[in-house]
């Protein structure tokens, strides 16, 4: 990780090449680390009742860890009847990617196809690595290398996980339901750095648990999301934020 934000001006070719090498190294490292837990997504997706090809389709097209875990989590609890709630949960968890795009669009530059490809791989990891680089070119390199490394690694390991999950059979006996809960803890943990986030997390968990016996599966999670809207709107317990950069960074689970 480079420390000084403006270490070298872009006019020194050697320094620029050095920054690019650092960006590539960081992107590949993040890609490898992320790929490691693609296995758990693949296995849990099959455990939730999805087929291997459905599991791979999600990792290729949706390609956003939090949304993917949410989709299969809600489907595992409520079955196909919870479909609309599963779609809504996945979409709401994908909202932050849209916010990241505002920061990464100037890094990518113009061009319809380039932007379309870039938006596909705009996730926590690619955004965080890109924004951490000191020069415009190293930011661009960091974004593409990280996005592609995660995309390739995540999809290979999703398939491996799905094949393992398919072979395992009885998933409860192997504790895969607990593994799914643990995976969500891992996605949440890095985001609990501020008091406001902790308060929202506790309140949302209480709301979801309380509503579980009362409303149809999937809905408790969606209703709990209202906690975030209300607290965020009035900024209760909050200070100032540079939200998108901080959010992308805290989404990293290394």
């Amino acid at each position, binding site marked *: 990780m480079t420390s000084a934000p403006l270490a070298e001006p872009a006019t020194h070719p050697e320094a620029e090449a050095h920054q690019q090498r650092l960006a590539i190294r960081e992107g590949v490292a993040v890609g490898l680390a992320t790929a490691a*837990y693609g296995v758990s997504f693949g296995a849990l997706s099959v455990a939730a009742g999805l087929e291997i090809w459905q599991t791979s389709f999600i990792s290729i097209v949706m390609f956003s860890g939090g949304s993917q875990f949410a989709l299969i989590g809600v489907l595992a609890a409520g079955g196909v009847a919870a479909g609309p709630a599963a*779609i809504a949960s996945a979409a709401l968890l994908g909202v932050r990617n849209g916010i990241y795009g505002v920061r990464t669009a100037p890094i990518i530059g113009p061009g319809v196809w380039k932007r379309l490809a870039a938006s596909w791989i705009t996730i926590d990891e690619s955004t965080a690595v890109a924004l951490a680089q000191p020069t415009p070119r190293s930011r661009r390199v960091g974004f593409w290398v990280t996005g592609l490394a995660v995309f390739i690694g995540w999809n290979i390991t999703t398939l491996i996980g799905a094949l393992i999950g398919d072979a395992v059979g009885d998933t409860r006996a192997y*504790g895969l339901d607990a593994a799914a*809960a643990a995976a969500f803890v891992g996605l949440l943990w890095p985001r609990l750095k501020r008091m406001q986030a902790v308060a929202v*997390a506790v309140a949302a968990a209480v709301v979801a648990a309380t509503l579980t016996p009362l409303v149809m599966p999937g809905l408790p999670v969606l209703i709990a999301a209202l906690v975030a809207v209300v607290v965020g709107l009035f900024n209760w317990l909050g200070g100032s*934020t540079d939200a998108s950069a901080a959010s992308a960074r805290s989404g990293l689970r290394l």
Partner: protein
Amino acid sequence: MTVWQIIILASIAVLALKLVGYLVPPALLQKPTPSRIADLLTVALLAALIAVQTLGSGQALTVDARIPAVIVAAGLFAIKTPFIVVVLVAALVAAGLRALT
């Protein structure tokens, strides 16, 4: 709805949201309130999913081997254990407790 329809709709929705940041005027999303809500939305949904995944069993709330597994997982994440290791240990804790009881 079939499983395929659910998967395709959800995937398109998430992909479309990624495009939004490249299409809308930056001023719209860069205000503090929308980005703060998006940030907290992620937190609230993940926390709610933990609660349901740990305590839910259909529409009932149950106390079983998942609770100790999740507590162990939280402890391991607190000391910066890698994701895949924690998920494996959580599965082992739950599977072990179920095998014993």
